[in-house]
């Protein structure tokens, strides 16, 4: 579904990703782990098409198409979803209005009819229960005054409503207490199926105890330095990232 080849990304003239290779098939869950500053968030943002994240080299193919040629909104419409590490508060734009506008933009792309207000409510009600959100939630401004946990639940709620094919979760576990983490993980797990792929970016292995990945990749110094199965996450939990950062430095020297 997703094929990343030799991806180099610079932000503000500084190279952050220095050649990422990654292949994700439908139905798979991949985790990207790594220390702060390793480029995890840059990878997530670059896949979503954030302006200012300049791809200087490499290719990203999504379902056979050149993903990098698409605008952010078009990536969303073909089924790429980024759950933000820091969701943005937008007072004055209602949650319900925002989500309905987004859903209809995506349905239009899929060739499905737009939903009216009543049909929309029917679609979202069930998903709200899944994330433990009450009715007042939809009437509030988008993330306005939300707690950290509410914002993250809102990200996964949006994901559940928009039903993307490729879900990129950027540090969805950060700032969550254990109860909120369980709710969020349950929401994510309920969406796992053989047609959908997930890329879970996280610093800690804690989240991966709830969302069990098929593959784990370790990112350090802008490169994937190690890949393995879910047991790699447990190993990292024990050993930490220190050794891997050294390995990345050695690799960088060797590459020169």
């Amino acid at each position, binding site marked *: 579904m997703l094929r990343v080849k030799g991806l180099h990304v610079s932000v503000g003239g500084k190279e952050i990703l220095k050649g990422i290779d990654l292949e994700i098939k439908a139905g798979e869950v991949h985790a990207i782990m790594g220390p702060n500053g390793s480029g995890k968030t840059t990878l997530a943002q670059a896949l979503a098409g954030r302006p200012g994240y300049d791809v200087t080299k490499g290719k990203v193919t999504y379902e056979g198409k050149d993903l990098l040629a698409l605008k*952010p909104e078009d990536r969303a419409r073909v089924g790429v*979803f980024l759950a933000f590490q820091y969701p943005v508060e937008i007072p004055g734009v209602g949650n319900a*209005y925002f989500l309905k506008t*987004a859903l209809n933009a995506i349905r239009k792309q899929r060739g499905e009819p737009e939903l009216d207000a009543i049909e929309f409510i029917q679609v979202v009600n069930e998903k709200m229960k899944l994330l433990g959100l009450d009715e007042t939630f939809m009437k509030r401004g988008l993330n306005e005054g939300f707690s950290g946990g509410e914002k993250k639940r809102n990200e996964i709620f949006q994901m559940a409503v928009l039903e993307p094919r490729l879900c990129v979760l950027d540090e969805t576990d950060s700032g969550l207490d254990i109860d909120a983490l369980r709710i969020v993980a349950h929401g994510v797990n309920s969406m796992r199926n053989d047609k959908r792929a997930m890329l879970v970016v996280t610093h800690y292995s804690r989240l991966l105890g709830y969302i069990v990945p098929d593959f784990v990749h370790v990112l350090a110094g802008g490169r994937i330095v190690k890949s393995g199965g879910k047991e790699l996450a447990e190993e990292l939990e024990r050993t930490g990232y220190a050794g891997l950062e050294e390995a990345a430095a050695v690799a960088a020297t060797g590459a020169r």
Partner: protein
Amino acid sequence: MATASLTAPHVAAFEAFQRVIDGGEAEWLGSLRRKAILRFQEVGFPTRKHEDWKHTDVGPIARSPFRVDPGSDAPRIAGDLIEGFTFGVLKCSQLVFVNGRFAPRLSYLRWLPDGVQVRSLGEVRRARPRSLEPHLASIATWDANPFTALNTAFFEDGAFIHLPKGAVVEEPIHLLFVSAAQDPPVAAHPRNLILLEEASQATLIESYVGLDRGPYLTNAVTEVHVGPGASLDHYKMQREADAGFHVADMAVHQDRGSVVSATSIALGGNLARNDVRVTFQGEGGDLTLNGLYALGGQQQVDNHTFIDHATPNCTSRELYKGILDGRSRGIFYGKILVRQDAQKTSSKQTNKNLLLSNEAFVDSTPGLEILADDVRCNHGSTIGQLDENAVFYLRSRGIDEEAARSLLTYAFASELINQVKVASMRIRLDQLILSRLPSAEILPEAA
């Protein structure tokens, strides 16, 4: 010393004006007018050397020989021309003025409680001038503002609204000032006197609109007295024509325990200057002062507000927001004075500006002068562009970039729009803001 070449035509016009008007007018009023024109002659049109006018060049107004036509009737215009500016026949009383003169044919009153007067100030001026004498020019003092002095010299008509003690007018009263272009261009000097006695309550909308392109000058003055425990919800909607000039001065006195909410919307005109000044004259007054200016092209709007906390225990909240596109200029100058006796004052002043273009200009000068020691006051201002994080967030959910920008711009305005209590006006305002935004077709449900 004033530039005589610019004031002379107005002084000459005043002499002609007096010949027409004087015979039928009370002596005190004639004397007031003469003092006002002398003051104008003395100080002249303001220049950018005046602190209060340093960002606004009124030269285009001063150099235009706008004609006043004393004693004339309102030009006749067809009713359907003003339909787009009204707020529903069955929902409010409406007084219409064309080029500053009352147009009875276009006006109507809904049921009003006993003793409530909603009528042409021109009629009152001719028939019962004595009822105006204690109030007129006592609230809107004219010594400091040359345009207010000009209005005082030349006004003929406007609205006179009087609510006796305890009267509650539930439906809004709409004052619609229409400018129809004439050749040579005309100046209108409408004057409104609004008197709310103790515990009375009203909702008032003042609209200033242009039917043609212009040029013309509207120079309006509104004086408001809000009695003890009385409550006024006031809205001003400025939709002057592209080449219209608009100058307005609203002066409000708030007596003890009174509650005022005043919202000023500025969307039109080539050059607009809007002064609002409120004085607390009794304890426990409460004021909400809101403003929204949305400009494009070469438009310029200058908002000056002054809140005088002269008495203790009063509260004021001020929020002005500007959206500036094209090469427009927005000016906000706000001053809050908390006098020595005004202990327990609570006052908050905020000005926020959104620049949609690199060529738009904003000057924001919030200000507090506090002479009392036991008060809670703060003020602040921001000038910025759309938050690119927010734009990307919306785009990442499938909303295209243009629509995302429009949605965020609308959201910026909606904080003020949502505070408008008159539903028909809120809907109209929504439409007017949305109609200026690209991709607005995806937005009508945003409200």
